[in-house]
C-alpha cells in the first residue's frame, strides 16, 4: 500500500505541518517529516480536513441507475471531499429490508471510493403505515443506524413515537423529513410573496415547523434521539434552539442549497431549482447560516438528489424535486460560512465531518471510523482543499451521472485537491483516481 507524505498542509486551518499516511492510518504529523518510498503530495497553502461525512445522499441505485449509481455517486462524493455518505432509502425497491441495505452496502464496498452507509426506511415501502424491520437492518452487514423515510414524512404521530422508541435498542436515530403532508398538498415552492405572484402552490414554513415541534416533544417524552433532515426555515431553527436548551437529544442538518439560494430562483420557472423542502427567503437563509454557525444546526447534509434530464426538462409542476450537491457542498460552505467569517476551518471540520459521523455512529468503529480528529493513529481519512481557488460550475464536467446542478454557471470558491480514504487516494490533483 502506497504511503503518502503530505507536505505543508494546514490541519483544520492551523499551522502548516507534514502529515504521513501509512497503512491506512495517520502515522505522524510534524515539521519536515521524511519517509522513504512515500509519495509526496505538495500541499503548501492547502487546508487539511478530516474526510467529509454526508448524512443525506440519494444514490438512486437500485432502481434509477439512469440518474445515478452507487459508483458514480461515490465518485462525485470523493471529488467533493467526502469519505462517507449515507445513502437514502427511497430507492426502488425501497431500502426497507436487510437484503436491500446489504446490496447497497456491498455496491459501495465494490466502488471503494467512499464508505457508503445505507439508511434504512422507517416504514415498509415508505408508506408511513407500519414499521420496517429496523432491527434486521441494524444487525445486517450494512450496520444501519440512521433510519429515514426521506422524501416522505413519518406523519402519523403514534408511528413516529414508536419508531423513535424502537431504535433506541440499537442506538439508532430517526432522521425525519419534516413535512406535514396535509399542509403541502400539490405544493411547488415556498409559500410567500413569490408563490402568490408566480401562481405556484405554496409550501408553508409552518408545515415543516409543526412537525419539528411535534417530534422534539416526542423525542423528549420517550428519551430518544431525533435527527431533522434539511432544515429550511428560520422558525425551525428557533424550535431546535429551544429544544436543545431543554436537553432534547435532537440534531439537525442544513443543505448547501438552503444556505445559498432563495425562492427568487423560482422566477425562472426552471425546475432545476425545484426542491423539497423548497428554497426559502433571504431571512430564512440568514437564520440557517446563523444556526449552523452557533451549532444549533449540527451538520451540513447535501440532499444530493440526481435526476435524469427528462425529469427536470419540463414544466415546473411536472418536474421531480431535488438537486445535485456532493461536488459543490464544501464550496458552498466556504462561500456562505468561511469567507464571511462565520465558521473557521475547525468549524467546517466539525459540521461536515465530526458531528455528522457522530450522529450516524460512525465515530467509534476502530479502523473504519469516520469523523475522527487529524491525529497520529487515527484512520487516514483526509481531504486537502485549496481555499484560494475559484471555479465556475459546469454541470457537464460533474462526475454525477445527472446534470441537475443549481450552481451551473456560478463561480464558487475552494477546490478539493485530494481525498484519502483510509490512506488510499480517491482523488489526486482534483481528479478521481478510479
Amino acid at each position, binding site marked *: 500500500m502506497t504511503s503518502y507524505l503530505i507536505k505543508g498542509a494546514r490541519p483544520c486551518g492551523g499551522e502548516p505541518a507534514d502529515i504521513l499516511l501509512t497503512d491506512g492510518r495517520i502515522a505522524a504529523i510534524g515539521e519536515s517529516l521524511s519517509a522513504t518510498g512515500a509519495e509526496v503530495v505538495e500541499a503548501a497553502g492547502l487546508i487539511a480536513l478530516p474526510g467529509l461525512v454526508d448524512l443525506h445522499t440519494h444514490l438512486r441505485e437500485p432502481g434509477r441507475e439512469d440518474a445515478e449509481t452507487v459508483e458514480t455517486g461515490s465518485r462525485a462524493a470523493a471529488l467533493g471531499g467526502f469519505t462517507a455518505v449515507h445513502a437514502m432509502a427511497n430507492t426502488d425497491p425501497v431500502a426497507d429490508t436487510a437484503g436491500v441495505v446489504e446490496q447497497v452496502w456491498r455496491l459501495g464496498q465494490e466502488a471503494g471510493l467512499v464508505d457508503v452507509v445505507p439508511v434504512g426506511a422507517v416504514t415498509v415501502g415508505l408508506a408511513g403505515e407500519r414499521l420496517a424491520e429496523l432491527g434486521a437492518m441494524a444487525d445486517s452487514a450494512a450496520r444501519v443506524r440512521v433510519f429515514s423515510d426521506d422524501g416522505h414524512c413519518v406523519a402519523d404521530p403514534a408511528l413516529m413515537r414508536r419508531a423513535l422508541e424502537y431504535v433506541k435498542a440499537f442506538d439508532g436515530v430517526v432522521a425525519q423529513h419534516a413535512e406535514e403532508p396535509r399542509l403541502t398538498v400539490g405544493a*411547488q415552492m415556498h*409559500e*410567500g*410573496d*413569490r*408563490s*402568490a*405572484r*408566480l*401562481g*405556484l*402552490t*405554496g409550501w*408553508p414554513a409552518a408545515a415543516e415547523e409543526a412537525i419539528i415541534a411535534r417530534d422534539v416533544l416526542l423525542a423528549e417524552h420517550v428519551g430518544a434521539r431525533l435527527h431533522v433532515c434539511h432544515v429550511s426555515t428560520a422558525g425551525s431553527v428557533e424550535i431546535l434552539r429551544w429544544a436543545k436548551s431543554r436537553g432534547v437529544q435532537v440534531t439537525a442538518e442544513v443543505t448547501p442549497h438552503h444556505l445559498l439560494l432563495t425562492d427568487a430562483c423560482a422566477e*425562472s*420557472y*426552471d425546475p432545476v431549482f425545484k426542491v423539497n423542502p423548497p428554497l426559502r427567503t433571504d431571512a430564512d437563509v440568514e437564520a440557517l447560516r446563523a444556526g449552523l454557525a452557533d451549532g444549533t444546526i449540527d451538520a451540513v447534509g447535501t440532499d444530493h438528489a440526481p435526476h435524469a434530464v*427528462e425529469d427536470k*426538462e*419540463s*414544466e*415546473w*409542476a*411536472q418536474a421531480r424535486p431535488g438537486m445535485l450537491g456532493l461536488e459543490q457542498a464544501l464550496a458552498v460552505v466556504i462561500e456562505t460560512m468561511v469567507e464571511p467569517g462565520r465558521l473557521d476551518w475547525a468549524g467546517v471540520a466539525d459540521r461536515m465531518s465530526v458531528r455528522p459521523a457522530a450522529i450516524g455512529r460512525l465515530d467509534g468503529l476502530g479502523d473504519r471510523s469516520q469523523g475522527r480528529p487529524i491525529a497520529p493513529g487515527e484512520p487516514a481519512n483526509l481531504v486537502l482543499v485549496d481555499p484560494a481557488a475559484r471555479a465556475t460550475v459546469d454541470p457537464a464536467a460533474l462526475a454525477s451521472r445527472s446534470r441537475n446542478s443549481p450552481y451551473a454557471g456560478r463561480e464558487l470558491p475552494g477546490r478539493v485537491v485530494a481525498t484519502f480514504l483510509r490512506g488510499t487516494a480517491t482523488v489526486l490533483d482534483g481528479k478521481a483516481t478510479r
Partner: protein
Amino acid sequence: MKRHLLEAADLDRADATLVLDTAAQIDQALAGREVKKLPTLRGRTVVNLFYEDSTRTRISFELAAKRLSADVINFSAKGSSVSKGESLKDTALTLEAMGADAVVVRHSSSGAPHRLANWVRGSVVNAGDGTHEHPTQALLDAYTIRQRLGRLEGVRVAIVGDVLHSRVARSNVGLLHTLGADVTLVAPPTLLPVGVGSWPAEVSYDLDAVLPKVDVVMMLRVQAERMNASFFPSAREYSRRYGLDARRMGVLPDDAIVMHPGPMNRGMEIAAEVADSARSTIVEQVANGVSTRMAVLYLLLGGAPA
C-alpha cells in the same frame, strides 16, 4: 414590445396602451365591412397549443389569427402525441421545426409558457397558465373598461372571488395597475394567496363595503369543488357573502359596469339578472377578445418575418 407575451409585466404602460389603441384601430377598420379580414399576417403560421380544454379562448385566438390572414394550426393535447406522453420540450421542437411564427399556449402548469419560450424561436403568447396569468384576458378587460368608461386612469376596479386560483386576477392586477387603475381584491381570506399584501392592490373581505365605491366590479368564476377543500363552507354561503345579486348591483354607482371572464356559474358568483343587465359587459368582452388578440398577434408578428 417584447418578443413574447407571457405575463402582464411584459407590457409597460406604453406597450399596453399601444395594444389597446391597435385593437381600437382594428375595430374601426373592420366596422361595417362584409369581409372581416386583414392581409397583415398572410403567410405566417400561428399554432394554438392547448393542453387544457378551453373552447372559448381557443376560438377567440383562432378567429383573431384568421382575421389577420395567418395560417392557423390547432394543436390540442388530447388526441395528439402529447396524450402519449410527449414532453413539452419535444412538442416545442416539433412546432419549431414546422416553422411556427407564434405559439399560443394554454397549459394547466404555471410557467409552462416561460419554459416554452426557451425552446422556440417564434413568439409565445400565454393563453392562460395554471394559476399564474392570462394576459390577453387582462388586455381585453382593460379594453372593455376603456370603451365603456372612456378612461383607465383612476378607475376603481373590484375583483371579486377566487383570487388564489385565478390567473385572470393576477394578470388584471398587474395590467390595471400599469394602466393607472385602482384595484381592490374582494374574497374570503381562504381564497386570497398568502403574500397578496405585496400586490399593488387593496384587499377587502367585505363586498358590501366595497361596491358603492367602485366603477367596475369584475366577478371571478368560483368552482364549487373548492368547498370540498374547505375554502368555504357551502356554495350557498359563498353566494350569500360574495355573490353579485340584484340587491348588491343596486348599490353600485350609476355608471358602474359588471364584468365576468366567463364561463359563468349563474346563481353562484353572479345572479342571472345581473349577468343579463345593461351594466353587464360580458358579451362585449367576448367580442373585444378577438380584436385585442388580433392586436397582440399583429404587434408581435407584424414586423419583418422572423
